[in-house]
């Protein structure tokens, strides 16, 4: 079954993962900029990372017939250093014209600090100035509820931001409703322990509907599964969801949101 992986950190994965994803039906993979697992020492580290996302990784994906797209930003875990963030944000415009760039992301909050919030506002400004789509990371575990509320306040208060051009990722049962009620898209991340399991993600679909929502693996260097989306599609089938309902969630919905970027083009 064809699907789009709308959130995966492929720089952390092996070529075997690309092959397995292609075999499972993946047609395109979208890679938000994120934390490397350690803080980069200068803006030069980000310059190299953005080059990796826009030059090297698409070539690696193409070897397996996969289209590769990316999002650019400084992530919230490195946003406590506002001076570094300003330097990184100044770097981003020169990469926005590259053909696989979808927008600004994954911006957001981590520990919900004042500096993280300031850097979030700076990156929302960047997205508005360059008319870019926005992909938002919401905080982990106990910080998610508060962080989601703070993020939604920032986005709703900026009248230049169209809600339908924003995806709020990593929603769970306590945050999905407030995101959808704002007219923004919601992303569910399928993690073995810390976010949604396949069963819970399907519960959310059955409770809140299938509009403006997608699923992703967010596979990275941590405990995660690059095949989480097709495995959840299989779980949906066990739960009695038909083929068209499954295709809507794993292919049509991400396609509908992402094609708001002129750069999102699938193969023939």
């Amino acid at each position, binding site marked *: 079954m064809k699907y789009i992986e709308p959130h995966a950190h492929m720089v952390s994965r092996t070529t075997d993962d690309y092959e397995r994803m292609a075999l499972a039906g993946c047609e395109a993979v979208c890679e938000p900029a994120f*934390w490397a697992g350690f803080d980069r020492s200068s803006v030069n580290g980000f310059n190299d990372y953005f080059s990796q996302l826009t030059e090297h990784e698409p070539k690696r994906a193409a070897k397996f017939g996969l289209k590769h797209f990316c999002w650019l930003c400084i992530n919230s875990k490195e946003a406590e250093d506002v001076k570094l963030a300003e330097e990184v944000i100044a770097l981003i415009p020169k990469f926005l014209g590259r053909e696989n760039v979808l927008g600004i992301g994954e911006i957001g909050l981590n520990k919900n*600090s004042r500096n993280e919030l300031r850097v979030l506002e700076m990156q929302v400004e960047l997205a508005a100035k360059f008319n870019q789509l926005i992909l938002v990371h919401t905080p982990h575990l106990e910080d998610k509820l508060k962080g989601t509320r703070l993020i939604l306040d920032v986005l709703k208060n900026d009248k230049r931001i169209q809600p339908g051009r924003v995806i709020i990722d990593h929603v769970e*049962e306590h945050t999905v409703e407030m995101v959808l009620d704002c007219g923004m898209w919601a992303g569910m991340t399928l993690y073995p322990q810390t976010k949604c399991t396949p069963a819970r993600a399907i519960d959310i679909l059955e409770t809140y509907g299938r509009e403006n929502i997608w699923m992703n693996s967010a596979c990275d260097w941590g405990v995660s599964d690059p095949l989480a989306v097709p495995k959840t599609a299989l779980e949906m089938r066990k739960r009695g969801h038909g083929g068209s309902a499954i295709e809507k969630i794993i292919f049509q919905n991400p396609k509908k949101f992402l094609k708001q970027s002129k750069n999102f083009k699938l193969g023939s």
Partner: protein
Amino acid sequence: MTRQQILDLYFLDARHQLIEIAAFLDRVERAEGKDDFRIKSFRAALAKLDGKKKNRAKNVLLTLSDLTTAPIAKATAKGATGAYPK
């Protein structure tokens, strides 16, 4: 799906997770030392499973969440613990 079908699909897995939680609580209580905020929040969240209340998953997540609204002054760590000291 019918309730019977849901039970057929998920009962054994839920039973397994229920026993894991029971064994975890026994393990914590066998160990020397004091409770911390995480296990206190965990016990409070368990109470949300009781009775006929709906939205149990949402209510458990809310019990384990930071319910304050103001940004913190500075992020001094990157990780999360899974519960918030109340």
